[in-house]
Each structure stands twice: as C-alpha cells, then as structure tokens.
C-alpha cells in the first residue's frame, strides 16, 4: 500500500512546492500505515545521491524514475498515463502533486483517464477509512476553505503549496523516533534519514499520449522577479493613472524590490499584467509588502496573504486592507512616497 507523490527536480534539488506536497503526502501515508514514494519524470541516473537524500529526508522510501523512449520533456497526458500505470502496478491508495500549473494539469488528466474525482488545492488531508479521505481545500484561491470528503480509490489530490510548510522528517517534533536523540550540540547533525531507493519505471505510451509536448526555453528575466522579491511595492487604483507609477518604481529600486499592482490597474491598462498580484496574477510572499492605494479586494489579498509583513498606505482608514495589514499610514501616497524616497536617500 503506497501513497505516490509527484515531485519535480529543480537544479540539484527538489522544487519547494514538491517538498510541501511530500510533507502533506507523508502525513496521509502515516495515517494509513502506508509507504510514501516519490515519482519524478527523469531517467534513473538523473536522481543524484543528493536528491535521493532530500527525498528520503522527506519520508519517501522509494523514488520512481519514470522514463520512456520518446518522453523527453513535459508532456501532460503522457505523465498522467504513466502515473495511472504506476499507481495500478503498485496498488497506490492516493496520488498527490503540488498545485502548480503542471501538477494541476497532470492530475486533471489522471482524473479523466481513471474517471475519478480530483480534489484540488488541499491544505489538510487525512485517511478517514479505506477509500475515504477527509480534507480541507482552497476555494476562491484561499479566501475561503472547504471541508470535504473524497471517496475514491485511489484518492487524487493536489496540494495548495503556499498553505503547507515543507517539513523534513528529521525536523518533525520528536515522538516519531523516541530512541534516536535529536541533533545534539556535539554532533551538530540531524540524524540522517535514509536516502530514497531509485526504482526505474518504464511506462507504455502511445504516440497520442505524446501529442501535447512542451518545448522549453529559458525566459529572459527582467529585473527582480515579483514572485520571489524580498520587498514588493504595490500600487492600486489610488495611484491614479499610469504616470503615477514612476515613484513606486523608484522606491522599489531603492529597496531592491519589485512593483506589484492590483487587478484594476492591469484591467485599466495602466501596467502590464505580469505585474498583477492576486488570484489571477502572481502570488507573492515577500518579507515586506508595501501596499499603496490598494483597497484590499479579496481577489488581490489571495495573492499577497503569504507576505510576512503588510504595510498599507491609504487615504481611507476603513479600507479592507487596513484590517489585513500590520501597519498603516493614512494619507495621500502621491505625497508620502516622494517624501519616503527623499528620507531613504538621506540616510
């Protein structure tokens, strides 16, 4: 009895979203007394010792390396076909993937192939019985939660990555291995979890399965990436027009950050859509989100709730953003931002 979790290698390591999905999958497996296995789409040789150690430290006993003749890169239907075959061959009780574009897409195909439901963007899952999983999942991109029950064998789930922390086995608060002492100051090392064992898997794919295949090319990056910026300076309707963004850009530059905007700004055509923060834009998780002239609509907040600190600058003390921010300055951003820039330059 196995819980399978799709993971995506990222450079020498494993993508953060995959580690979060593995963490949730491990809890599900443990609740049912089952094994956790990772599934990666790459040749067995591509799973380095380092990568297997990471997968092991997140509780994966086996790591399936799925490779086939004509399967070179990302091919959503082929990946799903392979997962379906693998799930059947190892008697999987659940298959999970991170709620990324690829994870959602592959799991939707898997659901269609197996004629089973898929619960998307889960934040909690637990085994309620054979063939039944209790879960909590996102609605409205996390602005609401749904308590639900999934009756399906196997259970097909995607994980709301920003709602689940990535926790390796060794860092789980004791109890698991009462015998083994946690990291001692002397040794200084966390007891190494066992590395995952590579299991090559060659699925049978047809030409039709590979009809949709991605050709990948690196994107030209322009400045600080919004998704990973440490500081985001946000601008909303209160900025007043396209010409009002100059000072925000300047401030973002001073703080080594990026400019993000609300949906109204992009649908007015004031700024390009790549800068939108929100449910239909980018999800950000900076140390500081300085939200200027942003009212705090649900659609926007869904994209910035993982910010560590939110500071709002707004003329309206009753704007919804004030109830979601840690700090606020009440006033006109067209005066406050230039004054802030001057003060920062004088430091």
């Amino acid at each position, binding site marked *: 009895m196995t819980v399978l979790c799709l993971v995506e290698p990222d450079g020498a390591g494993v993508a953060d979203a995959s580690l979060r999905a593995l963490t949730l999958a491990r809890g599900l497996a443990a609740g049912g007394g089952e094994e956790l296995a990772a599934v990666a789409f790459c040749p067995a040789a591509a799973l380095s010792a380092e990568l297997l150690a990471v997968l092991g430290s997140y509780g994966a006993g086996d790591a399936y390396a799925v490779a086939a003749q004509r399967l070179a890169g990302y091919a959503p239907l082929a990946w799903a076909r392979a997962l379906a075959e693998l799930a059947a061959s190892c008697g999987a009780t659940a298959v999970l993937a991170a709620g990324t574009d690829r994870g959602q897409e592959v799991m939707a195909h898997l*659901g269609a192939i197996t004629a089973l439901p898929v619960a998307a963007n889960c934040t909690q899952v637990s085994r309620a019985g054979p063939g039944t999983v209790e879960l909590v999942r996102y609605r*409205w991109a996390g*602005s609401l939660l749904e308590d*639900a029950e999934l009756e399906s064998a196997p259970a097909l789930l995607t994980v709301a990555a920003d709602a689940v922390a990535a926790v390796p086995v060794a860092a789980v608060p004791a109890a698991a291995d009462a015998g083994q002492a946690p990291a001692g100051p002397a040794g200084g090392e966390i007891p190494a979890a066992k590395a995952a064992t590579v299991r090559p898997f060659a699925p049978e794919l047809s030409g039709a399965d590979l009809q*949709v295949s991605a*050709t990948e090319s690196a994107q030209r990056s322009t400045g600080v990436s919004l998704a990973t910026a440490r500081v985001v300076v946000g601008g909303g309707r209160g900025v007043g027009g396209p010409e009002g963004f100059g000072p925000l850009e300047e401030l973002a530059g001073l703080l080594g950050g990026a400019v993000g905007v609300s949906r109204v700004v992009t649908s007015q055509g004031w700024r390009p859509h790549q800068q939108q923060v929100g449910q239909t834009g980018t999800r950000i998780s900076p140390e500081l989100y300085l939200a200027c002239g942003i009212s705090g609509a649900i659609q926007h907040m869904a994209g910035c709730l993982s910010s560590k600190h939110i500071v709002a600058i707004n003329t309206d003390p009753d704007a919804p953003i004030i109830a*979601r921010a840690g700090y606020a300055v009440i006033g006109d951003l067209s005066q406050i931002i230039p004054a802030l820039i001057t003060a920062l330059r004088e430091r």
Partner: protein
Amino acid sequence: VEILVCVKRVPMVGGRIAVTPDGQDVDTRMSGFTVSPHEECAVEEAVRLTQRLGGSVTVLTLGPEQAADQLRDMLALGASRAVLLETDGAEWGPIATAAAIAAAARRRPADGDGGGDGDGGYDLILFGNEAADTGDYQVPVRVAHELGLPCLTGIKQLEIAAAPADGVVAGSGGADGGGADGGGAGDGGADGGSGGRATALREYRGVQESYDVPLPAVISVREGINLPRYPSLPGRLRARRAEIERHRPEGRAEGLRKRQLRVPATVQQQAQILGTGVEAVPALVALLDELGVLS
C-alpha cells in the same frame, strides 16, 4: 474558425467574502455576479480570432436560469450565439460538468453548414484556466478527454493558423463586428479535423513552454493573454435581444463531497496606524529599518 467558449457564473466579490448560514454557498445577498476573469479573456481572444480569421463565437455556460445574464454579457463582447445548460442551481462537480459540456459541443451546428453529427463541431474550445470560486482546474482537461481532443492549459499567448481551405473568410473588422448573424453561412465543410493548428505559450517557473497542436483542440487561457474590451452599445442591444439556446443536462453526484465552506481564521488584525500624511514618514522609515528591509 468556429469557437466555443465556456464560462461560469460566479459571485462578484469585493473586499469581503461571507458564507451563508448553512455553510453551503457564498453569501451573495450583497453582490452581483460575473464570470471569472480568465474567462472574459477567453471570450475576448475568441472574438479577436474570428475577426481575423472569420467564423463565429458561441458562448456556453452551465448554471441556473440567471446565468443567462452572464451569457448576454459575453454576447455583448462579440459572441454571436449562446447556449445555457440549465441546472437547478446546485453546484455541479467537474466530471458531470465536463460531460454536459462535451455533449453540447458535439451538438454544434444547428445553423449554417448543418454537419452536426459526430465530434468536431468546433475548431477550438476555449476555457478560463480555472474558475474563480471552485478552482478545480479540471473541466477543460476532462472535456478534451470526452471529445478525444488535445488540450493545453494556462495559456498566455495563442496563435491560430486556420486550414488553408477555410482560412480565407475575411475578418469583418471593426470593434464590434465579430458576430455577423449565422456566421457559418459561407464556410461549408469547415467542421471536423480542419487541418488548422494552434501554437501557444505558457510560463512555468521561469521557463517558457511552447506547444503546437492540431485543431480541433481544447485550450484554457489566463488573464493577461489580452486586455478585454468593454461592451459597445450596439453589442449590448444585440445581446439583449439574442436568443439563448437552452438544454437541461442530467447531473450526477461525484466522489468529492462538500461538507461546508468557511472563512479561514486569519489573524484578523487592525493595522497599527503609524501616522497621517508625510509626518508619518520618519515612523515609516524606522519601521522599515526594524523589519530589516533597509540593507
């Protein structure tokens, strides 16, 4: 190109979202309804494509009687035909929704070329990447499987090359000309494996994925693929008078059962007010320093 665009009626939420006392729905007493932003872009994309390549746009939704309002909104943007798959208002899961949409897609040409049997009534079936409310990310993929068509999702840039034989219908030009009535009149034999192709781009973790698939195909798009137009006055007038084709598909229960919706117990806080106007700037600088972002 004959294009079907599927949209979903969802509450228009502003600064607050609340749940009905029974925990089964979003409280919509204070809100209007709209379609998901991604879907509005799907309709815009379809209208632009037919203006360039000829053909027509059909919009479809599955929902209660009132969802006809959203169909009229989309007709006002330039779609020429609307189909309502009417439900009793209960929430449908992605499996049943996809089955009903696929059945409707197979029924296509009620006018024009009349080749309504079999698959492939449309060259292109467009969706938004995910619905704003349920965020299931599944209906486009499941529809593609039902119809045996290739599927792309999350697309931010799309090019359609119509087949040489039926790509000669001139675009009608003008901001509101996409919906000449009975748009199928001149394109006999355009249905079925039309020989056209779709090329599309998606962004994924700093990588650009490009795809190339034959038509017909199912494609879901993301906001940002275009900037949707505002409805024109003639468009709105035409939409008000337009006939809406109605069907009542059979629903069925699915394995994912909602127990209740709830508002997450976020740390509901009230911001600490640092001050008012430019006098607050020194306090703001001190705070930024304290948060460690002034390096």
